[in-house]
């Protein structure tokens, strides 16, 4: 199957999604005192940063970019982070999970242990310290059944908690971000985008991304049904066999819980074709952090996760 990229600026679903996202970005910036954009270096936050630049062009971004650094990153993603932040001429704040561990606020899971859940503490501390009252995130409703329930502007109490039973009504496009001191909102401009929409948009806008999204050869081991990249944070056990495979990453999280998929898709067109016929969801295929329980995402969001 061959694919051609869509012509820009036709009135199609991507235009509708794009303008909606720009509208949300501007509303939150206008209504909140101290917004921040959460940036992981993944494709969704890359699209979010791209949209933010469009929403306020030709001005500079009227908010900083916050990276919650677990210390277990892929190098290519950190390089992309710095490239993207520089291209957007944005101010970068890095909050480190390692600092949270060093301060004794959370137990150290060890060099190879998962820091996924610990990020929430680092995130909430960064929000409190910087007195942010709104945080943009690249989360999409098609990612997970708990995310599917969340408002575009998601109210969080003074402890950063999401209460799915007490969400504010969100009528029309009248986004309501008013909070009392200590409370905050998370704003998700990509709520109605699907994985395929994101890739089509990246193609249309010819966006830069971390190279690991495209097919490349890598040493991997199979663990818990996922292909993990052998490296600093994934050490093969004696029972595991290291093989070299042609892979790419469908999502980007911590190096020790993000699985690669076997793929030869080395171009944006090939990725779009692959995503369009995928029969496993992106989080199901690649994320160990969602496999703990039936309501893993809901539980983490209640605690204040992204």
């Amino acid at each position, binding site marked *: 199957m061959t694919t051609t*990229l869509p012509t820009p600026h036709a009135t199609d679903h991507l235009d509708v999604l794009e303008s909606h996202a720009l509208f949300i970005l*501007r509303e939150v910036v206008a209504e909140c005192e101290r917004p921040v954009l959460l940036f992981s270096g993944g494709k969704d936050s890359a699209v979010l940063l791209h949209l933010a630049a469009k929403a306020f062009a030709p001005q500079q971004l009227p908010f900083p970019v916050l990276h919650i650094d677990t210390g277990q990153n892929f190098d290519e993603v950190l390089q992309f982070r710095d490239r993207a932040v520089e291209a957007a001429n944005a101010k970068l704040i890095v909050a480190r999970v390692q600092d949270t561990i060093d301060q004794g606020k959370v137990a150290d899971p060890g060099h190879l242990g998962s820091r996924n859940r610990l990020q929430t503490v680092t995130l909430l501390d960064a929000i409190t310290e910087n007195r942010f009252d709104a945080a943009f995130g690249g989360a999409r409703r098609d990612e997970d059944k708990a995310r599917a329930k969340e408002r575009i502007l998601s109210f969080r109490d003074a402890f950063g908690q999401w209460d*799915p*039973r007490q969400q504010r009504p969100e*009528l029309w496009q009248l986004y309501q971000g008013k909070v009392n001191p200590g409370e905050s909102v998370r704003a998700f401009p990509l709520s109605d985008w*699907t994985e395929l929409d994101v890739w089509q948009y990246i193609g249309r806008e010819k966006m830069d991304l971390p190279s690991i999204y495209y097919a490349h050869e890598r040493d991997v081991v199979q663990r818990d049904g996922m292909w993990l990249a052998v490296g600093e944070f994934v050490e093969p056990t004696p029972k595991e066999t290291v093989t070299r495979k042609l892979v790419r990453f469908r999502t980007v999280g911590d190096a020790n819980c993000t699985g690669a998929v076997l793929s030869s898709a080395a171009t944006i067109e090939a990725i*779009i074709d692959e995503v369009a016929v995928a029969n496993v*969801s992106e989080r199901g295929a690649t994320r160990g952090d969602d496999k703990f329980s039936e*309501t893993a995402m809901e539980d983490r969001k209640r605690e204040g996760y992204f």
Partner: protein
Amino acid sequence: MELATKDLLRLATIGSVDDGKSTLIGRLLVDTRQLFDDQLDAVAAASEKRGIGDLDLSFVTDGLRAEREQGITIDVAYRYATTPTRKFIIADCPGHVRYTRNMATGASTADLALVVVDVASGLKEQTHRHLCIAALLGVRSIIVAVNKMDTAAWSELAFQRVVDQIETLSGELGFSSTVAIPVSALLGDNVATSSTNTPWYDGPSVLEALEQSEAGSWETAQGARLPIQWVLRQPGGGRTYAGMVSGEAFHVGDRVTLLPANIETTIRAINFGGESRLEATVGLAADLDLADETDAGRGDLIATEPLPRVTKEFEATICWFGEKPLSMNGQRLRLKHTTKSTPVRVQAITGVIDIESLTIDKADSLATNDIGLATLQTADALVVDDYREDRVTGSFVLIDEVTNATVAAGMVGHALFL
């Protein structure tokens, strides 16, 4: 080819609790292969864990722990589906009366309502309420899935009884298009494919009806509108005014009026994301450069003829969601309309809608989930159209000043059917 441009249809499921809305959406998504294997496996595992059979289709959208425990939908779930020419955004709304505010959330952005009615019980009070709210919110077409036909021996008579009820109500509420379909969401009849159990029915399946219905939001507006969200400083000292276009398109060279200041000027340039355009179409998050110097800012509105009204007092239709009743005892409320917020006072409550008869009864307060009519007075002047003319400049929310909770959905003017 997955890259062909698609149009976008937003739909909301409405109807009473337990009539099968979530099951119908689950069935539709499963039968049109919109679910990934792992998502389907997870639904199966969760069903088995709770001892409710192989596959509880409602679990496709009922994703919260409490929803699965109680077997009801608490809040809207958004799901997405695509066909070769169309992207669907599906808001699966709760049916329970207690969560009417969440149903209104889902329906406020919908182009179309998928109404689910249990064939055995017919239209319930909550179905009436939902249809009434959907009509007020400007949903123009409905598809009615008369559900659980398998429990009524696929009886045409039973189906027709519900269709008669719906048609009467639909006429009164002014829906422009109504399709009724006999379905079994549980078994899949007439959902994604036509059923052999209903040989007396030769209309479309739910999927066909969704594909055939008109996409795009309802627009009866005359005149272009751009509520200013944000002022962008341009290099060299100029300013442009950013916002989303509603009503009609703006063009370079259009004569426009800045409201409420009532200053006439011309559009010198139109930008989108830093690039220049000749036209700003409806729904575009554009920024406009005006020929004359103004001190316009957030909350002001740029419009073409016929101009909206500038007012501090107006009649409105209100869906009240507050826990305490809305009355005239001086509750501290704020009103958000387009990009403007202002203190507001309820001057008079002029009636409450009887959901069953659609008549207006006298009232001096509105209880939770009541729909009523009121006269509002705002501290600052608003630039409004009637809701039936423009969904953007005609809508507002009321906010509790103390808790910041959104306590009402409001529409300027009276609904068409009143």
